[in-house]
Each structure stands twice: as structure tokens, then as C-alpha cells.
């Protein structure tokens, strides 16, 4: 029954009828509908149909519930658990007694406990040791702790520099963001993979009086938080990963202003790891920006590569000068000697495959070649250390000493609501693969293959950065050849793994596209003339983009990009296009080290 029809004839709409049947209509309207039903056979039969189908569902549901059975333990033990929890919560409340400011807002029950606080400190200590609190803490408490731990980290070093890498998602567009921040000198450097995203994020920060140089900083968040007049906070604990989520909602946000922020803080060290910002748009749906930290380190200024804060100066001379100044003209190995050592280290690492797998940082610092390892005690670590030990001017160092944390997994997925996931091709993939677990395996294999290409590209990129043309020229022939050999190994690996990746991906998507009856129409390759230097980075970026696309089509939700529903044909054409580009980039990359290039 059309809306117009119902309105014209005074028949209640389907919705109204449903609400009437469920007793959800206001009294007056319910009376009207009841009167109408008494006189209208058509609507009576419509209501009857609704009632019958609802009854049908209820019968089905009861049958299903009956089959599944009742609670086997009949909820035994709940009261005991609750009582135990009460005791623990009280203990925790005693601990809070130490902060009267918070207690002013608390209930009378808590006030009584402030009196007991002094005597219960010992009890509390035992309580904390025996029992990890599952309770939520207040947002201001989490922020306070996070600020403290931030300050503590910075105070531990004389001239601390924070190095952050973040994955940014701005309304569906992904970018990488890297920040170097010398806290004392108030000197910042940022690098972005996408300038348009950078502009947009900078705009959001500026419009809300936040400091774009201090992303994901508890201090900055707290400043912003305290500047708000009308806000509400909530703290939730995301159990599986031991994360605390602070949600700050801003009342009466103007368009362009933030209306909600969710900050995820790691519970073990109060470190903020990700942030989702919802900016009020002029029309309806808020704009979503998410920033997820992928690595975080605090290091002394001396450990920072010189290029970071002195980017105008050419890398090699600057390094020598500063090194000489620092050492007051003390006897130092020459640049070439250091370079030779660096190549030897890289060679040794390459032989072990450590340049791809563990990727220790190899750096020319203060007249030494410093090898920083990010791993705990293990046989593999010993193996790597002993491989570089014999080389002249080499110091091996534990990066763990200054590195707070390198996030190996992104916590982004934690917040994703299940029922928002409706990836367009997930079902098709499961059908193609012949089951859920098969589809899952396929995706896992694909992710794996992509990761292998990715790490090889990253290794090649590092090699390229470490040995630009002018540095390689000064090396002896055999070392130049060694560098070329290493680069060639990586390029071959990229080609091999890349082919495997595409081989894994293409037939699936092709089959799905053909089933879709929408032939793939690969657009002309964009053919951007990538510079040799950028080729590796671009290849890596493209692969990441492709994997993101594939994940989005098969797995992820579309909350960020609601306008676009990907079909298999579109995914396929994107793959083909990227494949062409990847091949071109690989060619340019090869030109970099081939002897004919120069």
C-alpha cells in the first residue's frame, strides 16, 4: 500500500500499523488506528498478515532457542563473583581516596572511604598485585597518566627527539605521516606521502586549535580537551588488546569543528596509539579522520640522522663537518673508510637475509657505523651481531634502549563494528573459494605474499637511500659491484614475489569479474614518469594501495568510502593497471644500479 494511498484514504501506513500492533503508538493515534481498523476490512487483513508473519518468526525463534537449550549452570556462581568483585572495587576505591578532587563528584559511599584511605594503603598494594583492575578509569585520569608517561620518557634523555610514524586515513584516503620532533629545541620535521591529505589534516588541526606537530600526543589532546566548554567523556576498555578508549564528544560543534574524538591508549604504558576524529560537516554525516601510530621512538638528538633537521645541506659533507666539530678534531676514520664499513655491514646482513627480515638500522653516527637492532635476546640476534662484529668502525647497539615501542599490529580493527561490515565481494569470494575458511586462507596467503614484496621493496629503498650515486662513486670497484649485486637480489625477489602475488590474485578476481558479466576495462596506464629515486617508494606505495583495495573489496567495511561499491571488474582493472605500473617501476629501479646507467 503506497504512502500516498494510505494518506489519501486515511489508512494507517505499514509503519503505523506495526507500531499499533506492538503498542508503540501514542494513545490518541492508537485510538484512531483502532477505530479505523474496526471499519476497514482491507487494513484488518493487512494487520492480520503482519501479525501472522510476526507469530511465524516467534515460533521459529522459540523452536531454535528450545533446540539450543537453557543455561547449563543455571547462572550458578554469579552472586559469588559479584560479591568478590565488590570487594575488589572497594579496594580500588580506597586507592582513589588519595585524590580528593575526584571524590568530590563521587557518591557518599566513596567519601567514607577517604577516611579509610590512610590505613588501607598496604592493603591496596596487595590488592593491586593480586588483582588487575578491570574497572574503567576516568578520561581525565587516563590523560593525566598518559601525559606523565610522555614527560617521563622525554625527561630520561638530555636532548630528546620523538620519532613517530603514522598511518592516516582521511575520509577514505590513506597516507603515511612521519614526524621528527625535538622537544626541547621546539624543532619539528614532518614528511607526508600525500600532500592533499597533509593539507586537510593540517586544516582540521588548525580549525580546532590543536598542534599538528604533536599528533597523538596526550599533552596536546589534554590541551584541546581542557579548552572545550561543553563536552562529555566516556572511557571504555577494549579487552582483547588491553586498550582504553577515551571518547570525547563535543556539544554544539560548528561545521569544521571536531564533534567527537576517540583516543586509544595502551593500558600497559599509557601510550596513545590511535585516534579517530569526527569533524562536523555542514551536511549530516561527520567526516572521519583516523591516525594510527605504526612506530614510536624517543631517542637522543645524537642518534637522529642528520638529514632530518638539516635537510638543506648535502648529506655527506654535513655529516663530516658535524662529526669533526663534535669530536674537536680528534682522529676519525675518513668518510670513505666509514662507507666501506657500511657496505660490508650491509653485505653481511644481506647474506643472512637480515636486511629484509629484521632490517636493523645501519647508520653513520659520530665517526662510527652504528647497527641498531630491534630484537630481544635470541639466537638470531647473536647470529646477526657476530656477523657484523669483525667489521672495522662498527658499533652494535640495542635500539630497544631508546625505542619505546614499535607497533607490530595496528589497533585500528578493534573499533570496527561487525555489523557495519558489508564488503561487496566477501560473499562472492567465499563462494568462489568454496567456503569461509578457504576464503580466509586465500586472503591470508595474499596478505602474506604482499608482505613479502613489501619488505623486499623497503630493503631496496633503504639501500638506495644509503648509497646515492655520489657516494657509490668513491667506493672501490668490488664494493660497487657488491651494492649492485644486493640491489639486483632485491629486485629479483620483488619480481618473483610480485609475480606470485599477482598470480594468486588475478585468477580469482578474473573469475569473479567474469561471473559478474562485467568485463574488466583496464584504463590506460597513467604512465607517470617516476624518477629513479622515487620508483622504489612508489612501488611500495602502489602495492600497499593495491592490498588496501583488495582488503577493502573483500574484507573491510565501507564506512569510510560509502559512495563506492567495488565490483570485481573494477578491482581487476585496478590490479591490471597497478601491475603495469609496478613493472615500469621495477624497470626504472633496475636502471639505478645497472652499470650502463652512468
Amino acid at each position, binding site marked *: 500500500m503506497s504512502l500516498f494511498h494510505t494518506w489519501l484514504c486515511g489508512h494507517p501506513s505499514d509503519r503505523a500499523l506495526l507500531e499499533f500492533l506492538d503498542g508503540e503508538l501514542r494513545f490518541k493515534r492508537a485510538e484512531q488506528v483502532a477505530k479505523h481498523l474496526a471499519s476497514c476490512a482491507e487494513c484488518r487483513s493487512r494487520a492480520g498478515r503482519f501479525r501472522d*508473519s*510476526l507469530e511465524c518468526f516467534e515460533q521459529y525463534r522459540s523452536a531454535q532457542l528450545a533446540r*539450543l537449550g537453557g543455561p547449563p549452570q543455571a547462572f550458578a556462581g554469579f552472586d559469588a563473583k559479584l560479591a568478590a568483585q565488590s570487594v575488589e572495587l572497594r579496594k580500588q576505591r580506597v586507592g582513589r581516596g588519595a585524590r580528593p578532587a575526584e571524590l568530590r563528584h563521587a557518591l557518599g559511599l566513596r567519601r567514607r572511604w577517604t577516611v579509610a584511605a590512610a590505613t588501607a594503603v598496604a592493603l591496596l598494594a596487595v590488592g593491586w598485585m593480586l588483582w588487575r583492575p*578491570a574497572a*574503567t578509569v576516568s578520561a581525565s585520569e587516563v590523560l593525566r597518566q598518559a601525559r606523565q608517561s610522555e614527560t617521563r620518557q622525554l625527561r630520561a634523555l638530555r636532548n630528546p627527539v620523538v620519532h613517530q610514524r603514522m598511518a592516516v586515513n582521511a575520509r577514505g584516503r590513506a597516507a603515511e605521516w612521519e614526524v621528527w620532533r625535538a622537544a626541547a629545541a621546539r624543532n619539528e620535521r614532518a614528511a607526508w606521502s600525500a600532500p592533499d591529505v597533509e593539507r586537510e589534516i593540517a586544516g582540521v588541526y588548525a580549525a580546532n586549535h590543536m598542534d599538528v606537530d604533536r599528533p597523538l600526543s596526550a599533552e596536546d589532546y589534554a590541551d584541546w580537551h581542557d579548552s572545550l566548554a561543553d563536552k562529555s567523556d566516556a*572511557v571504555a576498555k577494549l579487552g*582483547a588488546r588491553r586498550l582504553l578508549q577515551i571518547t570525547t564528544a563535543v556539544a554544539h560543534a560548528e561545521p569544521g569543528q571536531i564533534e567527537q574524538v576517540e583516543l586509544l591508549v595502551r593500558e600497559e604504558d599509557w601510550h596513545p596509539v590511535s585516534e579517530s576524529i569526527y569533524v562536523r560537516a555542514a551536511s549530516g554525516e561527520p567526516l572521519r579522520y583516523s591516525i594510527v601510530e605504526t612506530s614510536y621512538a624517543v631517542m637522543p638528538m645524537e642518534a637522529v640522522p642528520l638529514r632530518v633537521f638539516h635537510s638543506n645541506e648535502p648529506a655527506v659533507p654535513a655529516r663530516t663537518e658535524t662529526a669533526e666539530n663534535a669530536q674537536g678534531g680528534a682522529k676519525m676514520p675518513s668518510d670513505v673508510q666509514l662507507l666501506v664499513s657500511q657496505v660490508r655491514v650491509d653485505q653481511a646482513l644481506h647474506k643472512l637475509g637480515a636486511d629484509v627480515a629484521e632490517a636493523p638500522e645501519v647508520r653513520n653516527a659520530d665517526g662510527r657505523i652504528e647497527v641498531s637492532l630491534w630484537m630481544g635476546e635470541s639466537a638470531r640476534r647473536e647470529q646477526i651481531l657476530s656477523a657484523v662484529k669483525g667489521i672495522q668502525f662498527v658499533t652494535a647497539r640495542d635500539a630497544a634502549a631508546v625505542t619505546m615501542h614499535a607497533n607490530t599490529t595496528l589497533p585500528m*580493527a578493534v573499533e570496527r563494528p*561487525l*555489523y557495519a561490515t558489508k564488503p561487496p565481494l566477501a560473499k562472492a569470494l567465499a563462494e568462489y573459494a568454496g567456503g569461509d575458511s578457504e576464503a580466509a586462507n586465500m586472503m591470508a596467503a595474499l596478505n602474506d605474499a604482499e608482505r613479502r614484496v613489501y619488505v623486499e621493496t623497503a630493503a631496496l629503498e633503504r639501500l638506495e637511500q644509503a648509497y646515492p650515486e655520489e657516494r657509490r662513486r668513491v667506493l672501490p670497484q668490488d664494493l660497487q659491484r657488491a651494492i649492485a649485486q644486493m640491489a639486483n637480489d632485491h629486485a629479483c625477489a620483488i619480481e618473483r614475489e610480485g609475480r606470485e602475488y599477482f598470480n594468486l590474485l588475478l585468477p580469482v578476481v578474473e573469475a569473479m569479474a567474469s561471473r559478474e558479466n562485467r568485463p574488466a576495462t583496464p584504463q590506460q596506464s597513467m604512465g607517470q614518469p617516476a624518477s629513479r629515486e622515487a620508483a622504489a617508494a612508489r612501488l611500495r606505495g602502489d602495492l600497499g594501495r593495491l592490498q588496501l583495495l583488495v582488503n577493502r573489496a573483500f574484507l573491510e567495511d565501507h564506512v569510510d568510502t560509502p559512495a563506492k561499491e567495488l565490483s570485481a571488474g573494477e578491482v581487476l582493472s585496478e590490479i591490471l593497471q597497478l601491475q603495469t605500473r609496478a613493472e615500469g617501476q621495477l624497470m626504472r629501479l633496475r636502471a639505478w644500479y645497472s652499470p650502463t646507467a652512468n
Partner: protein
Amino acid sequence: MHETRAMSAEGSTNAILSDYALLSAEPQAALSAEQQVIALFGQLRTAVFRHVLLILMNAPASEDVTQEAFLRLHVAMSGDVRIKDMKAWVFRVAHNLAIDQLRTAKPSSSLSDDVVLLQAEQKCMRGTRTPEQLYLTTERTAQIQSAIAQLSPRQRQCLSLKAEGLAYQEIASILGVRRSTVIENLRRATARLAGELQF
């Protein structure tokens, strides 16, 4: 297909909004938190259990989730969080815990979250279809089952929570959507069932 997509996207935005609507400040009664939880547990445990059971399809696990949801309510009430609608809160927490459990039930250390989510969603959908085999006795029951299987998970959940005797507004709070979305889901589900079953 497009309709359900639109609704799920809308649902997730509203879920964010209603999360803090649920948690917003509101003075609580003079009863102690423990007493309130015991009272609520007595009233709601069967309903919560059933709701979880239809997600997890496993009675012992559902019982644990139900208890855990009420224990969390107790923690939240004892802390700084003021809960406006405790019934909706506990249902919602149980609902989320159940989904979390689907996620962790997989031996999934090597799988990405995405994969687990995909599996969980499909397991949810499969779960509602499993009893088909047991009830394929008459043509009519088969017809009913296939009609119900065609509903979206959200539509089924709306119907199911309604069958539990919850008001539209409560269902909306639990699922994190607007009341009008719940009505619309129910209307579509009912119309679809009526059409499929030729009432």
C-alpha cells in the same frame, strides 16, 4: 542489497553517537551498585542469555557472556560511568561481548582481524541457518526458514529483540541505531515475511 548497505552504514554512525548517549551522566538511585545489579540480573538474565545464545549458538558460552555483561555493569556503575538505561547497556555489552567472542574463538593468531570479522559475520549468518536441517519436516516449515534466512542479520535481530518484549527505543539503544531505523527494519522484515509466506 543497497538498502541494507545504507542501513548498516547509518547504523555504525549512530552506534558511535548512542554509545555515549548510553553512557551519559544521569544520577543513579540510592541502592548500592551491587544490589541494583542483583535485581537487574534477576529480571534480565534470561532475556540477555537468549539474545546472546542466538548469536553464539552455544549455551555454556552464552551463559558466561551473560554473567560477564552483568559483572561489567557492576564495574561501570561503581566507577565514574553513569548509566542512563541499564537494560539497554547490559544488552549492548552482552551483544558486543558475544561478537568479540566469535572473534577470539577462532584459532586466529595468524589471521588478520579482517579475516576473523569476515568469518564471524558469516558464522553468524550460518548460525541462523543451521537449524534448517533439523526442521525440514514439512514444506511449510522449510518455506518459513528460507523466508527468515533471507532477512538481514539486523532485521533478524530487531525481530528477535522485539520477540523478547523489548520496546523499539530499547532495541535501538542495544543495536546502536535510531528508533526509526528499528521500525523501518521491522517493517521491511515483516513485509518480506508476509510476502514470502503469502499471508
